[in-house]
């Protein structure tokens, strides 16, 4: 049995024990203004469209978006102030879907009003979504300035659409409205990844993201349908009360068991977990603020949100949670190993995002929604910080992001602040002891390591190993790019137009130093980039406050109590767990995790700062030994997952489509359609000799035909007269 301790004694009902006590929802028509949290970004999207139609060539769209997002953030804060951790409020905005059918004997109806379900989980999510959204919009107003005009308007329109959809997803009061937001963020993600639509790689990445997400969304759509069929409602409040009442009878056994697996597929697609993770690294083709906002901090956590929101459903199915744990644990490990061997800074951060999302799913799977939720919160800040510093580098070095071509940026004028903020982000990502991420990751790993299930314990150890790998690849990037001797090559963004692909196969380029392009001077970021960076860094540090409050002041963890007052109450308890190797799980995780972090940073220091040729020596040593020969190339090629998918899905589909095309051309078109057309032609050929071109011949045929018909009529007349 999983470790669901909190509030377990409040009731002795079996189902209620597993899913905890969820406060009943209260109707709150007086909170209708909360709809503006969705409405303001939607309005901003509309205004950006008008700006686009009027060909505005100023920073007006950015201004509109920033004002709308800050407005949303302020409203969210007001809502938080008013509700805090009180009972969930349901705010009906308008009727949306309402059908009924059948007769009095068998009356059925389906209703999905456009309503908001505001509980502490909603508020928790909305606070960092709108807060980070506002800051990243300010950052983007400077970052995108080279595109002022059509592209600028399109970009901010996309960001507004994203925020409106994300707010809909998080604040929905039923699964159908959630699905609307879910698809909306997918659309915004597609539009923004494909922002540089003249670049073939960006278009391909956008399509890949969209199609992979559709696979997951199919699972979510089927899951929602089955929830309605099985529980007769898609409304959260009703669904939770049905679940608390105990297992439902009827409809066969397979259906309730299948629902969490289908929902999980949707979550894995949106949050880039195995098997649907390959779209996220490619999504880095989008502008960097988009990567920070959508593909690191907010949208990709929607999968975690879905499972946390539907946790009562998952808590009743131990197998489903175990699957989530395994997928999360393995994704964390695999993505971290890939991150070790990538040369594109944004791609390293993309793999680290996948890896950290894997930790969150591991947390959900092993039963600590608190750990998962806390990690979402800390990760949102430090990962946004890492992406935004990477973006500041790209912005200053004309799109250069290859860590082999940048070094010692710490000493380049204008990049000092960026470098040290990146260091902060790196330390937080490596879970430096007493940083915010240390506590959140610690909670997850303690729950895994201290579990009674041996497979969860294995995942816990794997997670600790992954923590070491994370520290290594994070500092590999920082030591290579921001430390060491100063040399850099500018990117080709403003110099020439050809496609800048970062080929991971060719060997690292060394020796090109400052002045390779004499006309290039990197420009440091100005205030619109610096201020959001500083604020997000403050947020990343402050995200540790809830844990310090527990540790030093014996207070309560704010995140924990937020989650304990929501539908994810079941896993929000303090994690204790069993002893591991004679030490408490908590202590064990802290000690091993800190050691792994220090060792990882140490190896990175040796290989990428103290003696940079050591990295190449290690690589050739691995290549030289037969058992480890595969490791470097496999990691550089991302475990060949794309290639495997190509062989498994794209090639059979390609071959199948060619076979069907052949069938269509020969049998359907060739035989059925053209064959039918040939029948009248053939019949006509039979009689064609009669048409000899002699006018008299035609006249004689006519006359003869007339005589025949007249004769026939006459004959009948004769017979009639008998």
């Amino acid at each position, binding site marked *: 049995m999983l470790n669901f301790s909190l509030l377990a004694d409040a009731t002795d009902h079996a189902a209620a024990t597993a899913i905890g006590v969820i406060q009943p929802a209260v109707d709150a028509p007086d909170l209708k203004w909360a709809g503006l949290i969705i409405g303001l970004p939607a309005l901003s999207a509309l205004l950006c469209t008008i700006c686009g139609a009027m060909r505005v060539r100023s920073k007006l769209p950015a201004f509109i978006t920033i004002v709308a997002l800050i407005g949303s953030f302020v409203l969210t804060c007001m809502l938080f102030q008013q509700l805090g951790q009180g009972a969930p409020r349901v705010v009906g905005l308008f009727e949306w879907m309402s059908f009924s059918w059948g007769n009095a004997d068998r009356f059925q109806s389906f209703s999905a009003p456009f309503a908001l379900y505001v509980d502490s989980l909603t508020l928790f999510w909305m606070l960092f979504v709108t807060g980070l959204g506002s800051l990243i919009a300010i950052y983007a107003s400077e970052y995108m300035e080279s595109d002022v005009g059509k592209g600028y308007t399109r970009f901010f329109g996309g960001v507004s659409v994203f925020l409106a959809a994300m707010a809909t997803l998080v604040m929905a009061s039923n699964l159908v409205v959630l699905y609307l937001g879910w698809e909306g963020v997918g659309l915004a993600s597609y539009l923004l990844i494909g922002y540089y639509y003249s670049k073939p790689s960006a278009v391909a990445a956008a399509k890949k993201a969209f199609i992979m997400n559709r696979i997951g969304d199919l699972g979510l759509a089927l899951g929602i349908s089955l929830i309605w069929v099985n529980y007769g409602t898609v409304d959260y409040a009703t669904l939770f009360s049905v679940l608390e009442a105990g297992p439902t009878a009827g409809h066969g056994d397979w259906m309730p068991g299948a629902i969490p697996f289908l929902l999980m597929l949707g979550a894995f697609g949106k949050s880039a977990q195995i098997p649907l993770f390959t779209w996220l690294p490619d999504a880095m083709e989008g502008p960097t603020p988009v990567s920070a906002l959508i593909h690191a901090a907010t949208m990709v956590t929607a999968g975690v949100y879905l499972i946390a929101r539907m946790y009562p459903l998952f808590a009743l199915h131990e197998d489903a949670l175990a699957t989530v744990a395994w997928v999360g644990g393995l994704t964390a490990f695999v993505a971290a190993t890939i991150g070790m061997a990538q040369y594109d800074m944004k791609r390293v951060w993309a793999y680290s995002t996948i890896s950290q999302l894997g930790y969150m799913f591991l947390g959900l799977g092993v039963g600590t929604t608190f750990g998962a939720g806390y990690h979402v919160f800390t990760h949102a800040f430090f990962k946004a910080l890492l992406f935004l510093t990477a973006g500041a580098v790209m912005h200053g070095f004309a799109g250069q992001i290859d860590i082999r071509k940048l070094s010692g940026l710490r000493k380049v004028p204008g990049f000092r602040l960026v470098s040290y903020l990146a260091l902060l982000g790196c330390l937080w990502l490596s879970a430096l002891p007493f940083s915010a991420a240390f506590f959140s990751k610690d909670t997850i790993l303690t729950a895994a390591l201290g579990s009674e299930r041996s497979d969860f314990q294995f995942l816990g150890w794997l997670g600790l190993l992954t923590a070491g790998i994370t520290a290594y690849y994070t500092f590999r990037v920082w030591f290579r790019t921001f430390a060491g001797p100063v040399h850099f090559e500018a990117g080709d963004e403003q110099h020439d137009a050809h496609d800048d692909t970062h080929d991971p196969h060719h060997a690292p380029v060394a020796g090109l130093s400052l002045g390779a392009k004499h006309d290039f001077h990197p420009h440091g970021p100005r205030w619109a980039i610096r201020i959001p960076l500083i604020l997000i860094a403050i947020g990343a540090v402050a995200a540790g406050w809830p844990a310090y409050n527990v540790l030093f002041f014996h207070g309560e963890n704010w995140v924990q109590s937020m989650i304990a007052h929501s539908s994810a109450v079941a896993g929000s308890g303090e994690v204790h767990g069993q002893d591991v190797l004679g030490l408490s799980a908590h202590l064990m995780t802290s000690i091993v995790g800190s050691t792994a972090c220090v060792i990882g940073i140490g190896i990175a220091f040796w290989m990428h700062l103290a003696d940079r040729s050591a990295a190449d020596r290690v690589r050739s040593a691995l290549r030289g030994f037969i058992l480890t020969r595969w490791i470097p190339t496999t990691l550089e090629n991302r475990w060949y997952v794309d290639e495997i998918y190509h062989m498994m899905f794209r090639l059979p589909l390609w071959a199948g489509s060619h076979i069907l095309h052949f069938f269509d051309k020969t049998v359907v078109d060739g035989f059925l359609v053209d064959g039918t057309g040939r029948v009248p032609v053939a019949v006509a050929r039979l009689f*064609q000799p009669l048409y000899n*071109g*002699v*006018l*008299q011949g035609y*006249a004689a045929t006519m*006359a003869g035909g007339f005589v025949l018909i007249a004769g026939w009529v006459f004959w009948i007349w004769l017979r009639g007269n008998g």
Partner: protein
Amino acid sequence: MTELLATYDASSVNAALLTSSVLFGIGLVGFLSRRNMIVMFLCTELMFQGAALAMIAFGRVHGNPDGQTFVIFILTIAAAEAALALGLVVLLYRRRETLDSEAWSELKEC
């Protein structure tokens, strides 16, 4: 007028129908045996008038003026059509410098 139409002489109707058959027959035979396009056109006119005469005769049998009314219309249309057809014949003649309808036999299919 109605009295005039109400009674009819069977023999005169027969004679009119016979005349119309003869006219139609002469036209048909002429159309089939001659190749000169003007003569062929005149033959079609002959068949036309045969049919028109039969219509007057049958109108007389039924005792109403419909047959005659139709014929008046037919004559006006026929006048217009004759002008058109003669124009066509002239054009065809200018193309081939002959009135022989055989000259146009390659207009057949294939």
